[in-house]
């Protein structure tokens, strides 16, 4: 990044609007993450319409800030009520809750905040360093590669976001089907519009996103009696900030977990939950003697390891999303939707024609991580209150925000009905174990895949396979597709082994 570009990006970043948006994103993200049942993905989907009226840097920095802060926020309920606010905080609960029971809840939260901040910062720097060169690769892409990238993205998120490969792929395919609704841009034929003019322009992304992630989550929450209330958090006790000695003890763990998190994040499809378990297990493996014995009984290292890793995943997961258009997780799939809505197409152009905006957003993400650390420590006592807000109060508020947010996109009631239909579809699909993320990605990538394949047919002049095999980049992508089909069983085995190891060790120590 040259000086001129840096200055231009900083100029875009340091405005009142962007600073306010980042602060709101951090505070909102921590609260959303701290509430068990609400995820960062849902929060991002819900707030995309608000970013419409904002400048791209402010809007997208806010979404990135929510992602980072919600990942930390998940640890608040994990530590205080032994209920991970997000699956990525499951490993944090092992030691965090034990610390709370020992009267060290405040310290556990502070360590979690510091580790999350460092992990997030490392990942933000990795994003700044890794994304621009990787984006150069995408400049060499043509129609065949775009088709293969779309297939690769769908395979990856479909295979790792679901408990079942078939269901994940089915979800992605459903998304592709939804993307075909509307007038075919090449022939002008209306497809699957059933004579309705409202469907001629296709299904809008934002109503589908809000329905699939937010309204469907409301229905999931409604299953728990609409819902009752959350478990009462323990009052924060003890000294908040760790001592210098304690900080020294966890420094190496935070550094190691940050590296692991970035690496896991960059792998498309591997989310914060995998990162935090690997970080936790590695911290334990590297510990010796009494330090190792402490894991599962209230180890500050355990909290630091899991939290540094899951926050380091966030920046890493944005690398493939920004450069290749392959989101690494549900949250980055939704952020990619926000990116497209602001007229920013992932790939090389983000780092050339729109470089000042893109760098400003990445620097905004870096700043959001610093702010998150500061606010998380300073406002811990207030964020704890969020875990006490009953779901029965939150659910109607979320629904009203779903409705007004969807309506605001095009000032259209038809969009609101689309959101409701997708909410019901998302709920029913979740009931049978089909995740919403691949549907959204199918919806986003559908047009790209169709256009890429159609143009490939024309360019191949009859020999499609020969044409694909004659292009080195296509061959690389084809190999990645084959690898991605082999990856899910390995990832599932890894997840199971890590969780089992941690559980066995905890049982042994309890006994």
């Amino acid at each position: 990044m040259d000086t001129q570009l840096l200055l231009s990006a900083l100029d875009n970043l340091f405005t009142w609007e962007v600073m306010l948006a980042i602060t709101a994103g951090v505070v909102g993200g921590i609260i959303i993450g701290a509430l068990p049942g609400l995820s960062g993905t849902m929060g991002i989907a819900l707030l995309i319409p608000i970013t419409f009226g904002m400048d791209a840097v402010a809007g997208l920095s806010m979404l990135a800030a929510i992602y980072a802060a919600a990942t930390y926020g998940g640890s608040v309920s994990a530590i205080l009520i032994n209920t991970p606010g997000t699956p990525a905080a499951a490993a944090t609960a092992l030691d965090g809750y034990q610390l709370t029971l020992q009267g060290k809840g405040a310290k556990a939260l502070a360590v979690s905040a510091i580790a999350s901040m460092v992990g997030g910062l490392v990942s933000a720097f990795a994003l700044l360093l890794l994304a621009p060169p990787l984006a150069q690769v995408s400049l060499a892409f043509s129609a065949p590669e775009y088709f293969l990238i779309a297939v690769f993205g769908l395979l990856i998120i479909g295979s790792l976001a679901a408990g079942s490969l078939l269901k994940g792929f089915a979800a992605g395919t459903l998304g592709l089907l939804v993307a075909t609704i509307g007038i075919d841009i090449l022939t002008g034929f209306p497809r699957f519009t059933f004579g309705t003019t409202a469907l001629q322009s296709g299904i809008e992304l934002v109503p589908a996103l809000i329905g699939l992630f937010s309204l469907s989550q409301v229905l999931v929450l409604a299953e728990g009696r609409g819902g009752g209330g959350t478990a009462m958090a323990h009052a924060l006790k003890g000294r908040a900030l760790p001592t210098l000695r304690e900080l020294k003890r966890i420094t190496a763990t935070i550094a190691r977990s940050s590296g692991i998190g970035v690496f896991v994040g960059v792998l498309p499809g591997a989310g914060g939950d995998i990162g935090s378990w690997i970080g936790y297990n590695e911290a334990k493996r590297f510990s010796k003697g009494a330090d190792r014995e402490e894991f599962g009984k209230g180890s500050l290292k355990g909290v630091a390891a899991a939290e540094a890793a899951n926050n380091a995943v966030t920046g890493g997961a944005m690398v493939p999303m920004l450069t290749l258009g392959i989101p690494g997780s549900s949250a980055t799939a939704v952020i990619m939707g926000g990116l497209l809505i602001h007229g920013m197409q992932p790939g090389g152009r983000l780092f050339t024609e729109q470089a000042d905006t893109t760098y400003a957003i990445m620097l905004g993400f870096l700043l959001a991580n610093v702010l998150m650390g500061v606010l998380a420590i300073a406002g811990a006592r207030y964020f704890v209150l969020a875990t006490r807000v009953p779901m029965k109060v939150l659910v109607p508020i979320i629904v009203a925000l779903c409705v007004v947010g969807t309506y605001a996109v095009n000032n259209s009631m038809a969009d609101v009905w689309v959101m409701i239909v997708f909410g019901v579809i998302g709920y029913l699909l979740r009931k049978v174990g089909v995740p919403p993320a691949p549907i959204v990605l199918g919806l986003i990538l559908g047009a790209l895949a169709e256009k890429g394949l159609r143009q490939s047919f024309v360019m191949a002049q009859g020999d499609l396979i020969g044409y694909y095999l004659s292009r080195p980049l296509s061959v690389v992508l084809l190999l990645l597709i084959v690898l991605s089909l082999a990856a899910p069983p390995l990832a599932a085995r890894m997840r199971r082994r890590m969780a089992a190891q941690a559980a066995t060790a905890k049982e042994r120590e309890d006994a």
Partner: protein
Amino acid sequence: MPVEPDERSRTTALRSPDAVLGLSLIAISVVFLACTLPLSAAAAAWPRAVLALLLFLGAAITVRAVRAAAAGRPAAEPAAADAVPDEEEGASGEWSPAVLRRPALTMLIVIGYVALLDVIGFFPATVLYLVGHLWFGGSRDLRVVAGVTAGLCGLVYLLFVHELSVPLPTGLFG
């Protein structure tokens, strides 16, 4: 004619959630494939390819569910059966009327709310909705109901009407 035990277990297997999912995907594929018939070959090619894939996946999910039911085990693939859905809280997976009752009632309330928006306008409909849904959820404390209603309406007005200039529905009386 009495139903044979084998036939009965097959019927039960076809009612399992995974089999219903698979069969639903097959039905969607067939209906949408029929809808591609009037399209030109160029416009229909991609949707047909997508639908053929969906049909295949639907059939595979159904076959797996039936086989799993016959073997008396869950239908999820062993390798990924315990995978955590990425960043999302899952639904219960139960389909009993007791579990579905509240989501269904919640949906009815939401549909009623959205239907009212065009009739009486955004703010009156939202006030009615919030009071109704909070009551349905068990919030009987008037201070909470009033606070949430006033707070949310104020926030929406400031953010969407004042800042973003969104013309919210005013209803028949607007």
